[in-house]
């Protein structure tokens, strides 16, 4: 690893040249920033990975079953496992998807599951991302550059090859393709993950399309070509549900495909991931995921959640009120590291204000115990420093559900800070899965 780490600066230069950037909106201004790469990889031993892998597959299968259920018969609600309110009043639950089954019944084709490891070595799931999880391209391209700088590292360390992501993704698209080509649909270059969209198109052989490249006629989607138009059978869309189709969702969207939902309803195109998945990755629904595993699969969940309380339940509310300053309070209406507050870090006035908000609308909030998760070494010129880090695992559902043997490890920029989301300004590492 030492030889690799000595190349850190060169690898970052290469990443910059390749345009591996991360765009963020801050105070209404769009800035493209480099996503700093740290060459000291996170290493996960084979036996540990096997447990994670089984747990992730189980979790994603249960989440897919849940989505099929809540847009269909709603048995989990009738059986009082999940309260109706948590599903139907979630902003991610789309009424226009009720009764509509996506091709092959798959809702979440690409799931980004965020995990952390406690100092005791236990893994906890912090968040499920079933809408448009991004980030797989960063470790992919970083690994390629690292291999070029230090090929020996990969010959001697028995690291599982992660270059199969493109073909895994392609298999996912082909599996649900309803006839025609695969496209990756991007909102355009002013999107935080535009680099990734173009990279994945290259990796999967799909066409990269923007609004205007695609149109719907007679319940079919077409790609406007130079010579002739081609039918589209699967759309890996990298835009959120509300912008997807202006004649169904937000009318003011100019980055969507008008009437797309009519082709989808007719079963003529697959949308990856399916619209409406927000009903299952809501911060409030998270609490119920281990129960879903038992309910749908009849299995004990292999992966645990961080200890979570729902102020919606009176017992949990009183616990949260009594232990407020020890907990992380999360606003279920926000995503991506926004709306996450460590109550201990607030001054008395702000803490009291938040406490009142939780009391007034308990359904909107969840509270979690703080997990003292592991720090990983990050290489700096003055020496290695410890930083909090999480892991986004990518779980792909095609003919069967598989976990990509790699992942995006993100670390926080400042010591002690536990929020690692890239939109909050952190860096990333490669994740090595060992073969033995």
């Amino acid at each position, binding site marked *: 690893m030492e030889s690799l780490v000595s190349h850190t600066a060169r690898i970052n230069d290469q990443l910059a040249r390749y345009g591996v950037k991360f765009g963020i909106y801050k105070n209404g201004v769009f800035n493209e920033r480099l996503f700093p790469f740290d060459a000291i990889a996170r290493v996960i031993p084979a036996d540990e990975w096997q447990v994670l892998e089984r747990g992730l597959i189980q979790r994603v299968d249960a989440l897919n079953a849940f989505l099929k259920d809540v847009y269909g018969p*709603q048995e989990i*609600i009738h059986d009082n496992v999940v309260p*109706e*309110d948590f599903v*139907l*009043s979630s902003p991610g*639950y789309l*009424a*226009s*998807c*009720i*009764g*509509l089954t996506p091709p092959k019944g798959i809702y979440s084709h690409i799931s980004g599951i965020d995990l952390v490891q406690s100092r005791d070595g236990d893994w906890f799931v912090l968040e499920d991302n079933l809408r448009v999880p991004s980030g797989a391209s960063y470790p992919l391209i970083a690994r390629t550059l690292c291999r070029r700088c230090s090929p020996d590292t990969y010959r001697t360390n028995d690291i599982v090859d992660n270059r199969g992501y493109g073909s895994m993704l392609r298999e996912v698209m082909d599996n649900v393709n309803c006839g025609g080509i695969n496209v990756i649909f991007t909102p355009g270059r002013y999107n935080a993950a535009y680099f990734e969209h173009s990279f994945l198109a290259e990796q999967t052989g799909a066409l990269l399309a923007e609004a205007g490249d695609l*149109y*719907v*006629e*007679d*319940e079919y989607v077409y790609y406007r070509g130079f010579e002739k138009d081609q039918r589209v059978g699967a759309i890996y869309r990298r835009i959120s549900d509300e912008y997807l189709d*202006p*004649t*169904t969702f937000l*009318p003011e969207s100019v980055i969507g495909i*008008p*009437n797309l939902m*009519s082709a989808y*309803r*007719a079963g003529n195109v697959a949308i990856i991931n399916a619209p409406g998945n927000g009903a299952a990755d809501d911060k409030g629904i998270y609490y119920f995921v281990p129960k879903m595993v038992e309910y749908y699969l009849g299995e004990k969940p292999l992966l645990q959640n961080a200890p979570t309380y729902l102020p919606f339940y009176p017992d949990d509310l009183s616990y949260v009120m009594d232990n407020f300053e020890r907990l992380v309070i999360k606003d279920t209406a926000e995503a991506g590291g926004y709306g996450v507050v460590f109550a201990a870090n607030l001054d008395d006035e702000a803490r009291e204000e938040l406490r009142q908000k939780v009391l007034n609308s308990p359904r909107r909030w969840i509270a979690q115990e703080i997990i003292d998760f592991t720090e990983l070494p990050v290489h700096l010129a003055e020496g290695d420093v410890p930083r909090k880090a999480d892991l986004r695992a990518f779980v792909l559902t095609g003919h069967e559900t598989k976990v990509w043997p790699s992942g995006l490890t993100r670390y926080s920029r400042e010591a002690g800070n536990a929020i690692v989301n890239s939109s909050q300004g952190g860096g990333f590492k490669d994740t090595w899965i060992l073969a033995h």
Partner: protein
Amino acid sequence: MKLLDYSFSTTIDFSVPVRDHYFVLRCMPSPSYTLRVLESDLTVEPEMRYVRQTDSFGNLVAIGRKSEEHTRIGYHSSGTVRVDFNWAQPDVAHPVFRHSTPLTRAEGALATFAESLGTVKNHHDVREVDGFCLHAMSSVHDAMAYAPGTTTVATTASEAFAAGRGVCQDFSHVLVTALRHAGIAARYVSGLALGEGQTHAWVEASVDDFWYGYDPTRNQEVDETYIPLAWGRDWSDCPVERGSFVGLADQTQTVHMTVKEHAEQ
């Protein structure tokens, strides 16, 4: 039983040519237990292709596209329906109709009003639930003045109620909100009614698994002279026309409609 002839046309004139015009129309009666469509015709001008589908709420929709430039688009829907409440059958309401939406949240004065209507003790007691709905309907009617032009399609139930005025859409949003507040599944209905010169809106409540109609604007129970065109959680699920086009044009919309009892032959 009523046999009704309906005719409904909308014309949209654009100030400058537009193109790539996509539309979704909810302007055809959707068959239900109590309504049979005997004849239904839809023409779109200029001539363009469209397909018929059924949306998640069971509404018949026409979906199409006109890519060439045009300055006018017209939809004409007409036909004959037979409405007979004796055909009613149990139809369990989807739970989505028990939950509020951004347009139908009980806030401020509307929350107080909804609270003041009291509660339903037994949701399976048809007389009690129907009585509650009728009382709620009259209370909404009394609390609001019919005032066209004072609200828009974006006005929420709470805003309209606080202002104390609105049109059939606002009256219906307020009633839907109040009924859901009492735990009754309620849906918004857009449609045509005998004696109206424009599209109308009213409310249906699930009363022991049967849909009962209430018209808070006219303060009357819905009878067999009403023709539903679309059901939804609120207006945004049922617009007669939704479109998306390219071109910076101002739009002028003209609507003509009639409903009359079918002449005996």
